[in-house]
């Protein structure tokens, strides 16, 4: 079943075409990688899917429903969660509260509930604290639960972001360079974690520069260059694709 379909999306900033007529599909239960040189428009695609930008043209279909015009917070509720390339944690909140915040869209307690603390509100809160601890355990950082999020190491901050995204109970998890800034051991653990996430029935779409990670776990890879899709296929196919090789080697020598 196709979970997410990106259909011919285009986005320009001023005169610059950041994403040009890109389409691809994500199968339910798969791990898909989005790669490409710097500035290829990968993050822009993510921002369009998650409703931070609105595409000039094209459509995003999730679970058979168009979400193109939906707002960010509504899309989360539909079941798409994400992490950010530049880590975006709630720096003044504790690790545990960061995850609790992720439950926001799945809980209901409101102002009056907060003030009067009805029994059902307390129950909800208690249950979520418990679930949050489980998620922290799942990504392996539960012992830091009461530290400020900003005090974690870089790698652990990325893990916390994943835990927070998982707290929204997504069907699709979008990871923007999850291995960025991680050492080899940490990346290996990350690969293992992503597999475990998929095993929970969550589809994963990721941007990654670390080719080992991409080739290791992705079932499908989409390649962007200058905002356009230049290739799509299994990791094996991509490795052999001459355009991809050119894009990666060529630009390395000339511009970047």
């Amino acid at each position, binding site marked *: 079943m196709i979970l997410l379909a990106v259909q011919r999306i285009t986005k320009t900033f001023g005169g610059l075409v950041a994403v040009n007529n890109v389409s691809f599909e994500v199968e339910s239960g798969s791990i898909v990688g989005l790669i490409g040189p710097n500035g290829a428009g990968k993050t822009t695609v993510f921002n369009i899917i998650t409703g931070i930008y609105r595409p000039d043209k094209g459509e995003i279909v999730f679970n058979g429903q168009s979400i193109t015009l939906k707002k960010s917070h509504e899309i989360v509720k539909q079941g798409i969660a994400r992490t950010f390339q530049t880590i975006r944690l709630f720096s003044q909140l504790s690790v545990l509260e960061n995850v609790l915040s992720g439950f926001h*869209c799945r809980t209901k*307690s409101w102002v009056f509930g907060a003030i009067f603390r009805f029994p059902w509100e307390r129950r909800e809160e208690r249950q979520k604290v418990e679930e949050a601890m489980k998620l922290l355990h799942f990504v392996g950082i539960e012992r830091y639960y009461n530290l400020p999020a900003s005090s974690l190491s870089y790698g652990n901050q990325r893990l916390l972001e994943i835990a927070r995204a998982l707290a929204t109970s997504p069907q699709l998890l979008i990871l923007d360079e999850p291995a960025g800034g991680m050492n080899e051991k940490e990346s290996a653990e990350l690969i293992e974690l992503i597999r475990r996430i998929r095993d929970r029935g969550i589809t994963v779409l990721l941007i990654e520069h670390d080719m080992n990670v991409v080739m290791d776990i992705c079932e499908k890879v989409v390649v962007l260059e200058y905002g356009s899709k230049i290739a799509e296929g299994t990791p094996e196919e991509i490795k052999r694709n001459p355009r991809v090789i050119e894009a990666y080697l060529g630009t390395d020598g000339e511009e970047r």
Partner: protein
Amino acid sequence: MKRPVSFNPLWVFFIVIFALPPLLDPYWVDVLNNVGLYAILGISLNLIVGHTGLFNLGHAAFYAIGAYTSAILNTKYHMPILSILPLSGFTAGLFAFMVMRPIIHLRGDYLCIVTIGVGEIVRIALVNNIFGITGGSNGIFGIARPELFGYVIRSPHQFFYLIWIFLIITVVVFKRLEHSRVGRAFNCIRDDEIAAQGCGINVASYKLTAFVIGATWAGMTGNIFATKMTIISPESFSFWESVIMFTIVILGGAGSIEGTIIGAFLIIGLPEIFRDLSSARMLVFGLAMVIMMILRPRGLIPPKLRSYNVRSILERDYSV
């Protein structure tokens, strides 16, 4: 799992304060009354500025709306002043909702000037006797004293208990609000709007909620102010008042209720202590503001991380 039972020095502080008035003369009790009022205003503004990170320099507008609602209903329709308390809050909240809704998306300093603008518009409207009910620059006089169980509250000592009990209620309400899903959502917006959206938080709606709650509370405080003064005029709701409330929050520690109370003590109390300096008192006060800020850049009592009792969970086995 029980709520964490931690000893909060705040309650000791309240006990001490409540024991004070019999020892003090009416003047110092009245100073404490002012401190109490501004602490309540500060806590209500703290939700907007400290928790949600919205730059609001027009809080006096909501305070004014509450005060004027009470004054008008009391002097024109002779409703008992304390019975108007919820209504004053409601009017102020409704006003906040209506004016902030179209402009809630403005960022940082742009929101700041707009709140200043709202404050000024309200003040000018009051001065110009809008709808012929605000009494212009004369204001409204002859507001009744509050009556509780047939007992009229009149002297500073009596007002002390009214104001400080209201302050305690305020502290409890806002502490609970902080320590909840809603409070976390406010903090998320303050720390990172984009990530907050990524958690499914409707940023605009929660910002508006923060404004409405803060305004409602300021409106209720306005009711108490009106009955304490028995006369209100636009001068009491100038831009300067908003600045004072804002300073209380930041100086005390944005996001911290304990800090806000201390901030109110300093900002309202210090000029009174400096009274003997006569016309130099505000000079010293300004200097004190700068020095305190430099010594404690995050405020006198910065907020602490909220604690959750999870020991029982930690001990459990997670093997799935």
